């Protein structure tokens, strides 16, 4: 099965983190990403620019409405994701708990719908 691991944490925490510590976490991310590539779980993943760069768009009655900002103002923000292959939710959760941000924020694990051909 495929699972999307959505990484939510407090952006301000990162912004205010001393550079040395931030670099250490980045290096941890690089190591983690490589490890799930080596183990064959990695299907994709990216870090996102902060929500201050987000733009939201809705179409209502044919009218397009563009607004500045994320979908919802929350205490923790979506900051990145991994798409992983795992045999069941237990395996997916084992991967998710190793994402460095699991220690600071929350990883939401969502199964991906795979359409039958």
């Amino acid at each position, binding site marked *: *099965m495929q*699972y999307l691991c959505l990484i939510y944490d407090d952006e301000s925490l990162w912004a205010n983190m001393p550079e040395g510590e931030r670099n250490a976490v980045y290096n941890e991310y690089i190591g983690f990403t490589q490890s799930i590539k080596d183990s064959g779980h990695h299907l994709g993943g990216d870090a996102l620019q902060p929500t201050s760069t987000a733009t939201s768009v809705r179409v209502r009655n044919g009218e397009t409405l563009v607004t500045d900002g994320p979908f919802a103002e929350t205490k923790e923000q979506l900051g990145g994701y991994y798409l992983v292959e*795992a*045999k*069941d*939710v*237990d395996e*997916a959760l084992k991967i998710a708990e190793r994402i460095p941000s699991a220690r600071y924020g929350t990883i939401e694990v969502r*199964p991906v719908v795979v359409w039958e051909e």
Partner: protein
Amino acid sequence: MSRDPVADAFREEFGRAVSILIRALGDFDLAQDAVQEAFAVAAERWPLDGVPTSPGAWIVTTARNRAIDRLRRERTLETRRAELARLAELAPDEEDDDVSTIPDERLALIFTCCHPALSVDAQVALTLRLLGGLTTPQIARAFLTGEATMAQRLVRAKHKIRAAGIPFRVPPDDALPERLEAVLAIVYLIFNAGYSDVRNELSAEAIRLGRTLTSLMPDEPEALGLVALMLLHDSRRGTRLDDEGGIVLLEDQDRSRWNGVEIEEGRALVEAALRRRRPGRYQLQAAIAACHTGEASDWPQIVLLYDGLLRLQPSPVVELNRAVAVAMHRGPEAGLAEIDLIEGLDGYLYFHAARADLLRRLGRDGEARGAYERALGLQPSDAERRFIESRLSLLSPG
């Protein structure tokens, strides 16, 4: 066997049959429906044809045949070939063959139903439905929930198992202790949900689930401890309330009315568990419950056991229970000194009630009144309110 062999077989065999069918089908709904139908057939046929030698094997075979019929009727037969092949292998055609030749899958079913990816409410409902065979209306009644709400909860939970890929298996060794703890917590929660009401069937169901666990995991002392704890509590069930539904304290209960069979079994189980030398919270709580079953409660021993429990599971509620035991052992003054050291229970009814009781016994009526009144302000049940009010009436007018 009692007067109704179908009801007996149902309690004994429902969970096992469902788990076997789930393993073969990978489909919780189909498995549950097929087993339910098999019991409906049994209710018609057994009174006429007699009870089969092995009711469990008969149920599994009949459920299997129902499931095969159902799959054959479906238009997507092609995609169902694998399930049909597994079903065909499941049981020999002789209906009287022994069910024990088919691997018991109940342990996998328990761990799936109590998976932490499901909400606690969903875990409870699924466990009762799929392992206990309780109907949705029965579960709804036991939890004072509407039938529609409970039905929806079960549908959602089964959908999540499928869609999120919650595995049907016993967790691997590295995850087992933690997951077993979650399973035991659910069983104990079911027991407690039924404990306050004498007519409630949940406590008996929880004891049955606990026994299933100990038979499937005989090396787990905490599972033994949990069954012992439930039996020892259950043995006092009939004496906890008086005829008007008022609370009767442990020391005032009629010990001759405690259930001797449950006490004996509970004590034997807790001793067997503690001999494994891997103590845990359920074993210690059971040992404490066992200390109450003699002629009089063994308070010094109870204090020591609470010390052990606090080391395993530090919590202000355990501290409170320990303080009450200290009061029984060394007097109200010593107990009160312990209670006054506890932090974090200001919103807990029993904290104020226990404190009030010790103050009353020390003759400090004014302070006792204040503490009882604090307790009354914390949403007591009717029985609790009447108990506290009766204690208040013992105090000198303030």
